[in-house]
């Protein structure tokens, strides 16, 4: 274990050193290959231009290589693999897609994903907005915000253990040690095995993600609320608007853009939700979602890259509109510079 720590530290230092060395060395080489002689103005300016042409690519090189190898190429390869059989060796046309359409588990996953998409982003945004408004009005608001924001630092697996303990069910006459069942029992209900309760178990899993992500929505929306120009609210107050009206008719419309950003960010996260389902139910009791089904097929029976690729592509397709919107938005911003 000690040797592992030492080697890890060594690797960190070596890695940083190699990275730095690359940038430094490539810059040196550039200066040697395209020298700038003091006595020859023409060749000096030509070489300066050449350096300016090459240098961006030296700076960008490592990043571009990583992006292409780990993201661009795999997207293309996954698309191609979706037309091949389980080993990726034989072309099977649309067979994997046909399989997906008829597979009960796949349909279940789509249904559950839609459920997640309908509930989680809305709940997070709503709670986030409410908490942002409330905490902005009290002196200990920042402490409250910190506490609500904290689950964001907790891993999905850790959060799953935390919540599994809340949902814990103990049979027979044993004392209920799960908080939820204890509460249910205290108010006269009978304890349930929450995570295997058909259909509703999805919502118990969603609660975990809402618990984690509400803080994120709160932080962003709180900043947006603070950015609202004071005059607009003053004017509404003078016109005799109530607090409720000011919130819905003056404040919310002005932060509409930020709400959209929060919503889409959480939507993307929900589409990729994997750890929570894996650790809570592993897709049992009709809780399967696409990311877990995809992982399952990657390794099930030695792995089926074709079917797995189809499922990944569905997730990708769902993300694509957001991606296009983001790119447009970024282009617009750069045009404005």
């Amino acid at each position, binding site marked *: *274990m000690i040797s592992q720590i030492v080697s890890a530290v060594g690797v960190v230092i070596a*890695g940083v050193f190699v990275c730095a060395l690359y940038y430094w060395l490539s810059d040196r080489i550039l200066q040697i290959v395209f020298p700038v002689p003091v006595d020859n103005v023409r060749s000096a300016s030509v070489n300066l231009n050449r350096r300016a042409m090459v240098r961006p690519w030296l700076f960008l090189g*490592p990043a571009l290589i*990583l992006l292409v190898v780990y993201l661009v190429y795999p*997207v293309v390869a996954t698309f191609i693999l979706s037309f091949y059989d389980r080993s990726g060796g034989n072309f099977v046309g649309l067979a994997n897609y046909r399989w997906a359409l008829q597979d009960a588990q796949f349909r279940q996953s789509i249904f559950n994903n839609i459920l997640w998409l309908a509930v989680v982003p809305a709940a997070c945004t709503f709670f986030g907005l409410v908490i942002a408004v409330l905490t902005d009005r009290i002196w200990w608001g920042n402490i*409250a915000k910190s506490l609500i924001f904290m689950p964001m630092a907790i891993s999905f697996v850790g959060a799953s253990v935390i919540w599994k303990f809340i949902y814990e069910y103990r049979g027979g006459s044993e004392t209920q040690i799960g908080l939820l069942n204890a509460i249910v029992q205290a108010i006269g209900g009978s304890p349930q095995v929450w995570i295997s309760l058909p259909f509703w178990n999805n919502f118990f899993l969603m609660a975990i993600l809402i618990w984690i992500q509400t803080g994120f929505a709160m932080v962003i929306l709180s900043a947006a609320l603070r950015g609202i120009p004071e005059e607009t609210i003053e004017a509404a*107050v003078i016109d005799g608007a109530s607090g409720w009206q000011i919130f819905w008719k003056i404040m919310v419309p002005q932060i509409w853009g930020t709400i959209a950003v929060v919503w889409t960010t959480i939507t993307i996260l929900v589409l990729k939700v994997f750890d929570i389902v894996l650790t809570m139910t592993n897709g049992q009791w009709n809780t399967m979602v696409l990311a877990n089904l995809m*992982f399952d097929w990657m390794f099930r029976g030695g792995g089926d890259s074709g079917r797995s690729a189809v499922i990944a592509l569905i997730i990708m397709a769902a993300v694509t509109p957001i991606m296009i919107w983001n790119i447009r938005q970024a282009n617009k911003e750069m045009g404005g510079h």
Partner: protein
Amino acid sequence: MSAAASLRRIGLPRLIVHVSVLVICIIWLIPTLGILVTSFREAGQITASGWWTAFTGAAETSAARLGEPSTARQEGPNYVISGSVFEGGKGGTVRAFGTRVAAPTEFTAGQPADIGNGETLTINEDGSYTYSKNAPFEGRGKRVYLSVATPPSFTTENYRTVLTSQGIGQSFVNSLTVAVPATIIPILIAAFAAYALSWMEFPGRALIIALVVGLIVVPLQMSLIPLLKMYNEIGNFFGVSSRSYAGIWLAHSAFGMPLAIYLLRNYISGLPREIIESARVDGASDFEIFVKIILPLSFPALASFSIFQFLWTWNDLLVAMVFLGTGKDQLVLTGALNALLGSMGGKWEILTASAFITIVVPIIVFFALQRYLVRGLLAGSVKGG
């Protein structure tokens, strides 16, 4: 005065706001508090009572055997056995007792209970009992079930157990080995790229920025299959394991790269043009400008991203499972916790202590560097809106 401050004067009464925020905070905190408290309790107590009773003491159900019939003495018409139910065991306070395992709280302590068959049993709070019958006792000593209140007690034993015998200690080191390089390497690479995209003119710049923005949202799932195939082929070709730390460092670096470049470019392109121009006029090369001016000035953005990346790599399960494998020595903390959930389901003393060890590092990072985290979030999100 902020918008919220002016709303303060109109909307809901103050008190309601305070109370509702307090309630929300408690709801948000309770889940984490639950495992924290549980991780310090003894296994027996965890299953005997909810963690919320930990500070008031738990009611534990235990069994005891009363004295053998041979120890009975005759008092008038009755035969009596007396003694203490705590003989040879630890003490406590008896709250209730019963003669059937299903009903350990049938009778209140201190009051004589008619347990049928002409037998009367009294068990006092201090454990002493009087067991009498109107006929001679037969068979073995009677078994009784007790509900014993034990004083609150806490232990660090669970942590010792999981750190040594459950492999959590090893996984902790593995997690660090994965997360630290996977945080530092992408920052360096992304910072150089962000500088090039901000302050250097070259054809295709806009295209690369669009590519980076597009790649931010590409789901990890799209990359897994081809990369796994590629790693296996490289491993086979060189005759080494396809699952290595170097492999996962590069994977994490690449997956964090689009967001890193985007965040850093937003920041670096906003630095004042005069500083960079004047450095150029003074004859500094781009490399020098980057190292001596850009890097120090971009510290807040670098800090923001490194917190993101650290939290993300430390908390990641999927990438580690695919690229590092699930062997016992290779498990990172999240993987180890996931494995324990399978093998130790219901053993909450193990699970809660392990869970707390996995979340303690990110929580420290979170509270120490929250400012930078918030700043990074705002830079990454509000800008798009």
